[in-house]
């Protein structure tokens, strides 16, 4: 029995060793070496000396934050309203459906929509606002990224709100809480897990939307994700690319540690 169990585990363990642990070690190794495979700290020195990398780092997190925040603001009401609808399954299906359309196709559509003669500018022209240059700006990048992430935020929040016992909301209303109070002290805390998983599902992927910066954001290197892609695929300086990757990983671990500690503290408070 025990042997059989071990046998079933082998592919999974192999996966952990080969595709989880080994790649991390390899990317670390590359970041600490130069092209002739000798140990060096040169890459890190360059990263922290060169202002553009630090600026890019701040930029990446700022954009990821903006995208996540905008998505949350748009998605939370949608998820809440969704729980009130009659044909929930159908609505849900309609919201999930666009996520099945290839991301690149959607990004491509926005090249047309946001262009100087595109849909948005035609609409603006109705109000006498001349052609605004939207495509190839940072705004376009954030807008399209938000568009793409909306369904991924709605789903977890919807699931979290749906699990809330409606009696709790009714009790809060019966006890004289205003709508805002009900939201602030009942709905929001109880739907927090959904919001958290939504935020997690969006913040980190937003760091690697290099194809959007290439197609919509005007081909500039503005985030760490784009920089990694540039160093690996264009400049072929894998060592520097790996260094940026390691910095990104370290930053993410720090962010995760901070958020999880906060969550723990909250629990103790209760």
């Amino acid at each position: 029995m025990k042997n059989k169990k071990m046998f079933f585990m082998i592919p999974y363990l192999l996966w952990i060793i080969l595709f989880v642990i080994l790649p991390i070690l390899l990317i670390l190794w590359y970041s600490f070496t130069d092209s002739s495979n000798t140990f060096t700290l040169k890459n890190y020195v360059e990263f922290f000396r060169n202002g553009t990398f630090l600026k890019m780092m701040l930029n990446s997190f700022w954009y990821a934050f903006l995208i996540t925040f905008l998505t949350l603001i748009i998605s939370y009401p949608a998820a809440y309203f969704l729980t009130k609808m009659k044909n929930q399954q159908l609505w849900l299906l309609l919201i999930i459906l666009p996520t099945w359309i290839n991301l690149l196709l959607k990004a491509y559509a926005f090249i047309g929509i946001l262009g100087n003669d595109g849909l948005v500018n035609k609409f603006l022209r109705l109000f006498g606002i001349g052609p605004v240059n939207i495509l190839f700006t940072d705004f376009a990048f954030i807008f399209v990224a938000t568009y793409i992430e909306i369904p991924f935020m709605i789903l977890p929040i919807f699931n979290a709100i749906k699990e809330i016992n409606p009696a709790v909301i009714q009790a809060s209303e019966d006890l004289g809480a205003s709508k805002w109070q009900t939201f602030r002290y009942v709905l929001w805390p109880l739907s927090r897990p959904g919001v958290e998983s939504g935020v997690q599902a969006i913040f980190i992927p937003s760091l690697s939307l290099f194809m959007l910066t290439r197609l919509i954001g005007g081909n500039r290197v503005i985030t760490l994700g784009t920089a990694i892609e540039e160093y690996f695929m264009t400049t072929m300086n894998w060592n520097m690319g790996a260094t940026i990757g390691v910095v990104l990983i370290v930053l993410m671990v720090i962010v995760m540690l901070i958020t999880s500690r906060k969550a723990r503290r909250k629990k103790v408070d209760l």
Partner: protein
Amino acid sequence: MRNRHLVARIYLTFILILLYVPIFYLIYFSFSSGKNMNKFEHFTLAHYQTLFQDNRLLAIFLETILLALLSSLIATIIGTFGAIAIAAMKKESNKKTTLALNNVLMVSPDVIIGASFLIFFTALGIGLNFGSVLLSHIAFSIPIVVLMVLPRINEMDMSLIDAARDLGANSWQVFSDVLIPVIMPGIFSGLFMALTYSLDDFAVTFFVTGNGFSTLSVEIYSRARQGIDLEINALSTVMFLFVLLLVGIYYFITTKKGRKKNHRVMGGWVK
């Protein structure tokens, strides 16, 4: 109350319009005889004609689907056994460590996964082709399968297994007749998620694909970088219809299954 419903409906409709405008924008212009997505010239099916004569693109389309099916199937099998293994771990610390390692790929940005896999394949001397892309897709789909299946196992009433054992079931019977049916919904959603991950992936594939193999995402990216090409619009219509078909099938299967399950539950209650 009715008023609130109206607001809800308007807001949701607004969201839906927002979500669908780009897709229908693409479809609309796929019928235009013009060269760009600004002005609809007149109706034509010419772009569809070029699309269906584009053997390279059609081959890529089929390969992408084959890749998604293969990778999600393999990932589901490995991931399900992984979840069972994690659930069976006695030591809490072992369980935590394994889960943490499991989630590494879930929380890593795609570019990091892509870049590190690229280093990995080059270091091991594995050529960049269909094989490397398939391995990568399996690799990044496994953790989501584990995460979908594990809660099902944890929620499972362990007395079911004891009962089966007491009634004389051997290990294989416990596994195939008790454990698997109970966690089947988790396995299904894992498979479904893996399929979506694979079809939707661009970044990782972009890193680990060589010259010989390309998925739809990578192909669309390289074409879109060269500017607007209404053949891509025609392709998006086809893909939209394909997705509709898939969702229709999925919907049909799940509702049918749901009904059946309810039946069984009801039967159980009556007994």
